[in-house]
Every structure is written in C-alpha cells, then in structure tokens.
C-alpha cells in the first residue's frame, strides 16, 4: 500500500478521534479564546491592541499548538498504538505526514477562529487587497507549525516528562514562524501602515521553513520514534 494512502488513513483516523472527543472545540478553542481575552485585558489601550493584534493571534496559536500536539501523541501512547503502528510496518514517513495533515486541519480551524476573535476584540479589519496574502500566510504558517509540532511531538512521546519537554523543544523552533507570520499578517491587515507587498517575502520564509521541516521531519521521524 502506498505511503500516501497510509498517510490519508492516519489523518482520517486522527480527525475522527477529534470528532468523537471534541478536544479542539471543547478545550483548545476556549483556551485560545481566553488567551486572547487576557491579552486584551493586559494591553488595555486600543491603539496598542490594534498594533500588536497579528502577533497576539500567532502567540495564541503557538500556545494552542502545544496542547494539540500533546493530544495528538497522547492518543498514540495511551495504549501503545504508536508501537503497534511500528510493528505493523507502516511507513514512518506516512505516519508523520498523516499526523501532520490532521494537525494542520485542526490548526487552520483554530487560526480562523482566532482571526475572527481578533476582529471582534481588537477591532481589526481585513482590506480586500490583503485577503490573498492573509490566506496564503495562514496556509504556509500552518504547514510549518504542523511539520515542527509533529516532529517534536513524536520525539517527546518517547520520553518521560514529555509534557515539559515538548514546549522546550517546540517554541524555539517555531520562532521563525511566529516572526514571519506576524509580519505577513501585519502586511495583510495594513497594521501600522504596512503594505501588502511587504508581506510576500515573509511568506517566502514561511514556505522555506515548512518545506525544510516537512522534508526533514519525514526523514527523521522513523529513527526518532524507534528504539
């Protein structure tokens, strides 16, 4: 069976588990929402909030990413399913790709919700000429985050204390996404006079990041989850 087909089966399984357990809707989205509200309280001045809104969206996304990745690998280790997949001889690259795809879908839902939360809470507007840049930024940043999260989630899943190890590994690695996605969204939204054309170079950075971690992760995932 092809690796691509296995990847789709693994992704469908992860999303089906999410549909049953509703962890994203009942836990992660409220967590991200509360984070956004707390930022609003902390940065009370409207002018400051409008200026930093893109960064706050991505900060909330990063924190929520950690919860999603923990959950993604908890379902694999609760009853030894990851071991079972290894024994079944499933291509580790396919497992990695499948889990990253499912994580990307969940992240996209989260980001869209956070974007609308920012529009309401932080009084953001999306100019028409920034829509394409915004959508492209969301897609490329999501791919990068999913690639990094799945790689380090797999690595941490084999260690005791993985709950604390995962943030230590992941947050520094996703810093380029935080910077690039924030700048690109600022350009898309026209924050503080930024123009749309400025954002595309940051999208390029996000794409390079996603490809690098996607390829590297798919190659490294097998050895990382092995003995």
């Amino acid at each position, binding site marked *: 069976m092809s690796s691509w087909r296995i990847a789709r089966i693994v992704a469908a399984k992860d999303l089906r*588990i999410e549909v049953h357990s509703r962890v994203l809707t009942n836990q992660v989205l409220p967590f991200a929402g509360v984070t956004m509200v707390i930022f609003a309280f902390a940065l009370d001045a409207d002018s400051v909030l409008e200026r930093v809104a893109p960064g706050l969206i991505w900060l909330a996304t990063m924190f929520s990413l950690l919860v999603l990745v923990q959950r993604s690998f908890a379902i694999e280790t609760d009853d030894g399913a990851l071991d079972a997949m*290894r024994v079944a001889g499933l291509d580790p690259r396919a497992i990695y790709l499948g889990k990253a795809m499912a994580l990307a879908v969940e992240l996209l839902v989260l980001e869209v919700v956070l974007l609308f939360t920012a529009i309401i809470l932080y009084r953001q507007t999306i100019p028409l000429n920034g829509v394409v840049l915004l959508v492209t930024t969301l897609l490329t940043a999501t791919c990068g985050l999913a690639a990094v999260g799945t790689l380090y989630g797999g690595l941490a899943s084999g260690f005791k204390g993985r709950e604390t190890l995962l943030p230590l590994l992941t947050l520094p690695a996703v810093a380029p996404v935080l910077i690039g996605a924030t700048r690109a969204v600022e350009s898309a939204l026209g924050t503080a006079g930024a123009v749309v054309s400025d954002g595309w170079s940051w999208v390029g950075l996000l794409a390079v990041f996603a490809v690098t971690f996607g390829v590297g992760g798919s190659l490294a995932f097998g050895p990382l989850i092995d003995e």
Partner: protein
Amino acid sequence: MDNLPPTPDRSNADTVVELHDAVAVLGQFPALAGASVTVRRGEIVLLRGPNGAGKTTLLRLCAGLVPLVRGSGHILGLNLATQRDSVRQNVGLLGHQNGLYFDLTVGENIEFWGSTVGATEAEINAAMERLGVAERLSDLSVRKLSAGQKRRTALACLVVRRAQLWLLDEPHAGLDAVARDELDVTLREAAASGATIIVASHELERAGSLSTRAVDVVAGQIHGGQL
C-alpha cells in the same frame, strides 16, 4: 475456519523464526543472552519462564522492535539485523498494551487496522464476528469496554492484519472463560490456515494444551528451542 480471513502466503520460508546466539539488550542489561530457537510454519510455540526471563524481549526482538546486538536472526527468511522494516510488515504483536484508540469505537479501530493492509469490509466483519465484537460492541467506544473486551478487540485487529507470525504476550490475560475458549479456537484456526504463533504465558495448563511445542526461557537463554 469459514470466518477467519486466510493468512496470505508472502514467503515460501518453512522456517519462520531462526535465532542463533541472539543477544538483545534493554539499556545495559542483556535481556537475551545468546538465545537460539527455531520455529516452523504452522507451529504454536509456548514460551515458559519466570518474570524477567526474557520472554517479552524475545517477542519484541522477533517483531523487529528490539535491535539484535549480536548473533543472527531471521524471520520468514528476512534478516533481523538488516531487514527489520520488512520483518515488521509480516508480524503481529499483542503485548501488554492493546494498541487501541480509546476515542474510537470497536468497529472503527478494527476498520483502521484493516484499512492499513487493504482488508475488505467482509474481512473486517469476519474478524469482528470471530472475536465476538460485532453487533452490540461494534459501535461502543473502546474507552467503555472491559479489559477482556479490549483484549478481544485487539485480537480482532491482529486477525484483520493477516500477519504471518503472531507474537502474543499473555493473550489470555483479562479474558473470561468463554472468551479464552474462543481465543484458543481462533489461534488454532489461524495456525491451521498457515500462521505461526508464539505465545508467552504464565497460564501453563491452558497455553500448554493450545501449543504444539513448549520452550523454556531462563535468564535470557532458551532451553529446548531447537527442533
């Protein structure tokens, strides 16, 4: 036998397991210290021995989960040192954990493992009926099952994967008397249809009546392993 999916003949090797002076370590501890054993196709071999003797490590070595440090080992003619990925595709391991997803239903779990090997719906249904997890249990979340029901579901996943070599670690644990009898019938049918089965068990009377041969594992070595 009507209900059990046939084990596909993916290898002409009559000798399914062949270990010579195999050494496997857990950390620094030599869990297997020069183990030699030969198992022919269709045999049901019982591994006997006290706790910590190396039975589980032997099963994990045969599954390609534990690396072979010294000696030689072949599973279905495939070299354990150099072809571990190929070995895994032909082996099914039921260890102390069941490898199930708690948030999926029984049917969804079996369907997932079946889909990874391209099993048909008829094969999936046959495996579920054989292990008595069809109908009422099929739509129940695994989280709500008893330990015995989880074990039966895990065995159904193994059946639907059509592995040639079944490695079972205490398969009767948690099963009631009826389920144990059904499991024995399933294992005999699997062996009759070409599967080879190695069982590690402390329930010597039951496993002894099931097996065609028994070998003793003592302090990482195997007594009576050669034919």
